[in-house]
């Protein structure tokens, strides 16, 4: 761990410093949005959104090369796909009377498959695994700016509408009886989730996003008595897992995304076991 510390302060290792800053900054958004996703129990919707992101990335790469739309950055495609997916799965979950899970599962798979087909048809070589499993070590200063802006947006909206989101997650039927448009706030929450996922994809990739979004809040829920406490603990835990994962992956030359997920997943299951065991006693 000492050599990780030296590596971080080494001016030649700018990428590593970026990675640590990115991990810390992103944890703010993950902790807040992850808490809502966990308490509202929409991890499955978040999964569908994250896999649809791949369709958007594929479309952007395809159009960049085939249609000469150089400005159509993969991140733009990802944001677009994520927002469309968020609104779609949100409306499906509200209005589908039956087979809600099948419809959402279809959107999930369709997004992923169309992304791969579009990349197949795009000339050139693309490192798919960096999208699927993340590559925090490729992060640029531009990404840090994006995440900083996202944090500001999420903090601002969530502080302003904290009580609205609280009610949407706890008892949205009662909230609509108070004359408040629950659909609007539910979809807003899903769109914020979508934006968070897009930036998360840089760190842990499409496939592993849901884990980093839901594991820290799940651990936090063991100890938190109130929603804001759960958010605070989630932010701290998420930072801890990301930094520890980065340190371990640097020291042992492992992929950063899977290392972060293995650490946080193992911590969650261990704590779950301990809680279950002591509760039984």
């Amino acid at each position, binding site marked *: 761990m000492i050599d990780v510390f030296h590596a971080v302060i080494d001016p030649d290792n700018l990428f590593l410093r970026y990675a640590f800053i990115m991990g810390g900054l992103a944890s703010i958004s993950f902790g807040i949005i992850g808490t809502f996703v966990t308490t509202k*129990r929409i991890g499955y919707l978040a999964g569908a959104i994250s896999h649809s992101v791949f369709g958007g990335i594929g479309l952007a790469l395809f159009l960049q090369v085939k249609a000469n739309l150089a400005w159509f950055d993969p991140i733009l495609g990802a944001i677009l796909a994520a927002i469309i997916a968020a609104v779609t799965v949100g409306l499906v979950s509200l209005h589908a009377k039956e087979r809600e899970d099948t419809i959402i599962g279809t959107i999930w798979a369709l997004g992923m498959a169309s992304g791969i087909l579009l990349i197949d048809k795009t000339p050139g070589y693309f490192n798919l695994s960096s999208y699927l499993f993340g590559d925090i070590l490729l992060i640029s200063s531009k990404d840090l700016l994006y995440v900083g802006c996202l944090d500001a947006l999420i903090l601002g909206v969530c502080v302003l509408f904290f*009580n609205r989101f609280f009610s949407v997650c*706890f008892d949205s*039927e009662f909230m609509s009886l*108070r004359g408040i448009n629950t659909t609007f706030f539910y979809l807003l929450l899903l769109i914020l989730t979508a934006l968070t996922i897009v930036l998360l994809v840089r760190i842990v990739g499409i496939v592993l996003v849901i884990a980093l979004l839901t594991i820290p809040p799940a651990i936090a*829920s063991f100890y938190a*008595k109130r*929603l804001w406490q759960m958010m605070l603990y989630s932010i701290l835990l998420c930072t801890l897992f990301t930094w520890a994962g980065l340190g371990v992956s640097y020291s042992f030359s492992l992929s950063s995304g899977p290392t972060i997920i293995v650490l946080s997943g193992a911590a969650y299951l261990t704590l779950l076991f301990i809680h279950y065991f002591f509760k039984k006693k």
Partner: protein
Amino acid sequence: MHNSHEIILAKVSFAYKQRRILKDVDLVVKKGEFASIVGPNGGGKTTLLKLILGLIKPDKGKILIFGKAPDKARHNIGYMPQYAHLDMAFPANVMDVVLMGRLARKTLWFSKKDRARALDAIDEVGMSDFVNTGFNELSGGQKQRILIARALCSDPAILLLDEPTANVDHQTEENLFSILKKLNSKMTILLVSHDIGFVSKYVKSVICVNRQVVIHPTTIMNGALIKDIYHGDLKMVRHDHRCAKEGHIND
């Protein structure tokens, strides 16, 4: 429009997936009423409640609450859902839950006045010692009292309760009804009950729902009437006596 009639349903029908749940229902609930909505499962009790709340719209007929459409009258209705519908792992304390009753279109953050009203409502249901307790640490009966406090927070003229007597013991139910009795002096109360054999002595009328709706004063509730609702021969459980080993003692 007579202004002592708070809830009026005229020829209301509602079907779900071709299954007719309510047919040509007429109902008038007067101000100050304390009524229990009873009937078999699937008979349309919850549907009736949701129609009055404006959560669903009737296929036919008209519903007026204080002379207005249900979704326009909502802010005058307090609603207590079944606590079993809520997420028991949700991190919230009693105050967080009760403050939801102060939600309004313009309220983004709760004011001191909102907090004071919430504390009053918690006091009204006798839960002042639990303001900072986690909602999921409470017993079933305590949770229901907190959900009543949440409904009271918006100073409703009508209080609707969905199965407040489900999963609570007799003593808890008694406490609950004595709270409701007190509230009845200020507001009209309608509650859904899964239990027709027992109606609290405080209930003034019984609204029987089984596709059709009939309202009866509690005094004429008898075995023939129950048979009529359930379409079968049933024995009525009497709760107006004391039980002893050697048999029933009437008092």
